[in-house]
């Protein structure tokens, strides 16, 4: 099946070359970081986690979103998702790969990464994050590849794959719950010390992931003619809508708790992000872009006419994706560190090497997604022919 990635249209080859270029340039910047250290990034003693961990945080939710297809299709026999479950699983593979890569890129001593396995520390949530992410990656690869291979041969999937499929459903919930616990279990960071952190991750995962999937289905249809089916897209868009409503509700809960209780140390993080604090306000415009995109997109998604408008839907999905990318990918991580535990402010801005390394990792994800989709769509199109 893998031979399918080696043949394609001219546009396919150009895209692969562009991705390889982006990855290569990211890698060159990573070499700079490898030699000099994480000091080439914008991170500081106060803001010790930033873009890399933020991207990991966002992508772990996208990776979990495969369950939103697997659950209805395998557990409840929702046949409309039959054509695209494989696409969701492959998004999960690409996203989890990016997650692990972002973690490695963020380590101060990546040459010692195996210490996490050599000296297992079950009390550490990071240890469990490593466990759940690795298993999830293997699960999705195994399930996706097996099911696809069987489809190619026109055979039904083997019965031994069923337990793995069923396992992947709660496992998907576990990956972003564990990642949320990374943040929510720290006593000294008031911005993150909230019980709704894991539910918030759920909400943004099931909004951003299916939104991305809708966009990808549109792209695949434009480029290859493979049609996911109108009903599948409509259901996915409903999932995005409800997940966005949940996300906005959880955000409202956060704002109420923080501002009604009036605890200064908790308010300060929100104040810094949305209005600025002590004259420091570099993230304020970005936050309002995220908030506006979220609210406008949600309103238009709730209204059936706009949600079912096939031209508008991918735009709304892009707005959802961008809004949540800002919120989870930047503001959640950076906002927790500003102000610092001593209530002073050190602002953060990514550097160019940091930006290009990040882009390179996204390039790796896009490449994996492209190759896997090439296989999946080629197999599917062959079947339909």
């Amino acid at each position, binding site marked *: 099946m893998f031979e399918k990635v080696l043949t394609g249209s001219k546009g396919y080859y150009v895209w692969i070359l562009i991705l390889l270029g982006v990855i290569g340039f990211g890698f060159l910047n990573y070499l700079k970081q490898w030699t000099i250290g994480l000091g080439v990034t914008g991170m*500081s*003693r106060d803001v010790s986690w930033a873009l890399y961990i933020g991207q990991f945080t966002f992508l772990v939710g996208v990776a979990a979103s495969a369950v939103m297809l697997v659950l209805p299709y395998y557990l409840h026999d929702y046949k409309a998702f039959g054509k695209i479950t494989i696409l969701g699983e492959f998004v999960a593979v690409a996203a989890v790969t990016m997650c692990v890569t972002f973690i490695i890129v963020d380590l101060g001593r990546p040459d010692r990464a195996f*210490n996490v396995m050599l000296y297992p*520390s079950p009390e550490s949530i990071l240890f469990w994050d490593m466990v759940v992410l690795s298993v999830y990656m293997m699960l999705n690869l195994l399930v996706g590849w097996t099911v696809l291979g069987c489809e190619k041969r026109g055979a039904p999937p083997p019965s031994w794959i069923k337990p793995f499929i069923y396992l992947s459903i709660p496992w998907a919930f576990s990956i972003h719950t564990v990642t949320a616990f990374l943040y929510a279990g720290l006593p000294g960071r008031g911005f993150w010390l909230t019980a709704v952190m894991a539910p918030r991750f759920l909400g943004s995962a099931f909004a951003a992931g299916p939104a991305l999937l809708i966009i990808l289905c549109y792209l695949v249809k434009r480029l290859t003619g493979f049609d996911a089916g109108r009903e599948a897209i409509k259901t996915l868009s409903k999932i995005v809508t409800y997940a966005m409503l949940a996300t906005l509700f959880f955000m409202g809960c956060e704002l109420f708790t923080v501002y009604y209780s009036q605890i200064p140390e908790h308010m300060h993080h929100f104040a810094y992000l949305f209005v600025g604090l002590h004259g420091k306000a570099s993230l304020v415009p970005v936050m309002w872009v995220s908030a506006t995109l979220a609210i406008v997109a949600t309103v238009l998604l709730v209204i059936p006419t706009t949600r079912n408008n096939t031209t508008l839907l991918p735009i709304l999905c892009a707005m959802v994706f961008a809004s949540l990318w800002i919120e989870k990918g930047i503001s959640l991580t950076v906002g927790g560190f500003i102000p610092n535990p001593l*209530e002073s402010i*050190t602002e953060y801005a990514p550097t160019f090497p940091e930006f290009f390394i990040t882009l390179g990792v996204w390039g790796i994800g896009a490449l994996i997604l492209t190759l896997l989709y090439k296989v999946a769509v080629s197999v599917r199109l062959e079947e339909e022919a």
Partner: protein
Amino acid sequence: MDKTRRDFLKIAGISALGLGSTPLRAALAESAAPKVEPTPEALGAKRWAMVVDLKKFQQSGEAAMKACVDACHSIHNVPDWGNVKDEVKWIWTTGFGHAFPSQEHKYLHDLEEHGMKGVPTAVMCNHCDNPPCVRVCPTKATFKRKDGIVLMDFHRCIGCRFCMAACPYGARSLNWKDPRGHIKTLNREFPTRTRGVVEKCNFCAERLAVGKQPACVDACKNGEILFGDLEDSNSDVRKALREQFAIRRKPQLGTQPQVYYIV
């Protein structure tokens, strides 16, 4: 042909597994561990703790606090980067409102009439009894010793910085770049650290091991910083806590910090 190829792969796999277990078998066959003992003059304790006497520091002035900071940073080869982004610090001076954010009130500034600006406070790792940093470390590179000191194993740290996020006191620093170019004076008896590992105050464990007091305690000539075993009722720290009221930083978080401040 297919069947024999499969058999070949099975046999190859099992052989690889068998050969690969050689180091494991060798490790299990290791002889008894070598004999080690503590240094005869080592100071031991059940629970090391520190008392910072802010009242005495008010009399001694900021120069005394700077002396403590410089003593620590010079004997531990702590680099001086000169900027807030890269800085590495084990102990430093900050305002009272920053060390105790929940205790600040506007009338603290009245103390300025007595010559004190913002009540400078020395802050460092609190060597908590219930340390969140130890809980989160995925490799146990940060660990709590039996005598209460929260130590770093610089060999094992992978630089994930989870401990920096977990510390409620901002006590930890990462070496964002190679520190060696920025060390003012080298103490050849103590190693430097490399880029990518986290470091913090270690209650001078290497000095305690040879019978000396922590460097900051020695640098304070008037007992502004006291150090001792909380479980020894005759220690300096227990005496100080018996005679004067002391507070700790962010006690409501349950970390059980072991640096007490006499205010």
